[in-house]
């Protein structure tokens, strides 16, 4: 082949490659990309490092799936949804800086948050910002919803009182331990949960025979568990914000040979707990608002999409992450705007939504209400033990 022919072959080759690459580029674009005329930026603030990192990762998984599905299905016609993720490191000050950054970058919708102290700080920062909507994904404290002049803050998960109503009533009336030892973390979350214990079990059965608190960074619970053993309790109730702490306590309890029924605060039953606790969390019972085996159409679709994306079943925190974005997008669609946050907030609050958790409504404070589940760990799997109707 002469030099001229070589050049032509090379030019043709380059042309073929260029066309192929452009075709790949086209096929890689989602339909919404090509038709999108605007971008809706949703800020997700979750702990991706630090003691609550596992929860943050769960929230992120769910939120990302909701965004991907919305873009793939063109849920908001003409709008490309973008998730801007910030790590709050479980600290309020980092979260507030992240929120300011997201607001400066044009995000009006902020979601995420797995720690109550972080939610309180963000609520203070965003509560009077009527151009913003803040939907708290995982934090249980009610305080962030109590004072919000802009009516723009929502709490998706059960608060301490709702959880206590489902969890503690079930333990009292169905499991019926006689004497309970309470071991809770020394934090606002732990203090709130302990207050609920006093409210529900303050008199009669079960009798609270021991109340011990621990530092969130603690790893050695032998002193507390020795007291549990000597208290004569037949039930151990653990309040923990992180599955690692809960798993450590139940593991060390087993190692010390404690024979007690195991109970835990609501909302922490997940694969991280089972992974960290192994056989030591077997038989543990708690309350939650979600399990992947819930039988409704929305959940079946969600579980299938989640399995396709992550090759596993979703946890409660992952479902919350999904709902946090999905509900906002549905509300924006219903309100017909992605910029008027007052209209989106109203549409969100005034509607009844069908979610993977079941029917979801909001009370006047912005707190979500659904049915609750009593869940237990059996053979390394989280199973639904009982259902508590929505109130």
């Amino acid at each position, binding site marked *: 082949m002469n030099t001229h022919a070589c050049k032509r072959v090379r030019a043709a080759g380059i042309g073929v490659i260029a066309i192929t690459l452009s075709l790949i580029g086209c096929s890689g674009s989602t339909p919404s990309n090509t038709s999108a005329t605007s971008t809706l930026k949703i800020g997700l603030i979750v702990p991706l490092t630090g003691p609550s990192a596992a929860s943050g990762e769960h929230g992120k998984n769910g939120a990302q799936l909701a965004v991907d599905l919305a873009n793939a299905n063109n849920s908001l016609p003409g709008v490309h949804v973008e998730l801007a993720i910030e790590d709050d490191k479980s600290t309020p000050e980092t979260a507030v800086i992240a929120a300011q950054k997201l607001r400066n970058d044009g995000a009006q919708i902020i979601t995420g948050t797995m720690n109550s102290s972080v939610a309180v700080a963000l609520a203070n920062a965003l509560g009077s910002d009527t151009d913003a909507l803040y939907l708290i994904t995982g934090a249980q404290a009610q305080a962030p919803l109590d004072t919000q002049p802009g009516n723009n803050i929502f709490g998706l998960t059960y608060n301490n009182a709702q959880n206590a109503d489902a969890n503690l009533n079930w333990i009292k009336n169905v499991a019926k331990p006689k004497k309970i030892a309470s071991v809770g973390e020394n934090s606002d979350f732990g203090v709130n949960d302990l207050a609920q214990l006093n409210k529900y079990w303050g008199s009669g059965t079960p009798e609270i025979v021991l109340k011990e608190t621990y530092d969130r960074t603690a790893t050695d619970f032998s002193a507390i568990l*020795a007291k549990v053993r000597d208290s004569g309790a037949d039930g151990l109730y653990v309040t923990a914000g992180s599955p690692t702490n809960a798993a450590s306590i139940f593991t060390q309890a087993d*190692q010390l040979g404690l024979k007690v029924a195991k109970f835990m605060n609501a909302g922490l039953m997940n694969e991280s707990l089972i992974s960290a606790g192994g056989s030591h969390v077997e038989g543990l019972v708690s309350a939650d608002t979600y399990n992947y085996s819930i039988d409704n159409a929305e959940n079946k679709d969600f579980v299938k999409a989640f399995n396709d994306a992550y090759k596993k079943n979703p946890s409660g925190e992952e479902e919350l992450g999904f709902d946090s974005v999905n509900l906002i997008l549905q509300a924006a669609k219903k309100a017909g705007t992605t910029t008027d946050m007052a209209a989106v907030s109203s549409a969100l609050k005034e509607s009844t939504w069908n979610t993977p958790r079941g029917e979801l409504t909001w009370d006047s404070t912005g707190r979500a209400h659904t049915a609750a589940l009593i869940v237990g760990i059996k053979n390394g799997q989280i199973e639904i033990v009982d259902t508590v109707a929505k109130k």
Partner: protein
Amino acid sequence: VGPTIDQILNGLATGVVYGLVAAGLSVLFKVLDTVNFAHGDFYVLGGVVAYVGATIVPLNPFLTLALAAIVVGGLGALLHLPLQRLLRTNPFNVLLATFAVSLGISNLVSFGFGGRAQPVPAIVEGALTLGPVVITYQRLIAAAVGLLAILVVALWLKTSKTGRSVRAVADNRTGAQILGIDTVRIDRLVFIISGACAGLAGAALAPVTQASPFGGLPVMVTAFVVLVIGGVGSVSGALLGGILLGVIEGLTAAILGAQWTSLVGYVLLIAALFLRPALERARANDRRSLA
């Protein structure tokens, strides 16, 4: 009574491991006159080796303990390489450099562990029950390993030729150099011993506390408290300081509650910092009056 005796025993056992961590920090401080801020993270890495040896590449648990000492001791040698020049020219920058290494290790482990602690199975499950007192076998094993390691280090420093060289460099670096001791080699050796102590302690205690990426700083603070209580440069002092701190923490948890144990550590640290100079002055006065 049960929980109190339990906690004295638990404190003794945990204190021995504290002593092992502090012994490594103490020897390094005495020889090099500086602090390795990554020492607590070397403890964390010991836990990582224990986790890998117990779950990912199942090994004999005692072999895993030895491996933790070797691997983390080796990392100590690696850390010494870039620090050699700084140690001679600007010890303050060694603090900054090791602080950066500390942050790097903790972030890497956190990333590898998915941001959470990982469980490490006990070498022996169950607990020894003596009437009202219960102590887990794993804690007893950790104490035995810690005690054995401290004895080995102390004997090695006292009786071996290299150990005597380490002490000579610690006492008078220039004099040791004049005597022909290779001080760079001794420095490297001290980094290895120090790292091995921290790694072994982390691996021994990981089945009790889980292998946590965030354990470095609390352990470092504990080691400092032990160092101040037991005295810098003394392996036996580190052991006694560790036991004292462990027992006081245990009793505090049993009597006041577990949330007070951290505070007690800081109170002891402050008390030791105030009392130690007065005690040393009193000892010096005694010696003068005896002379």
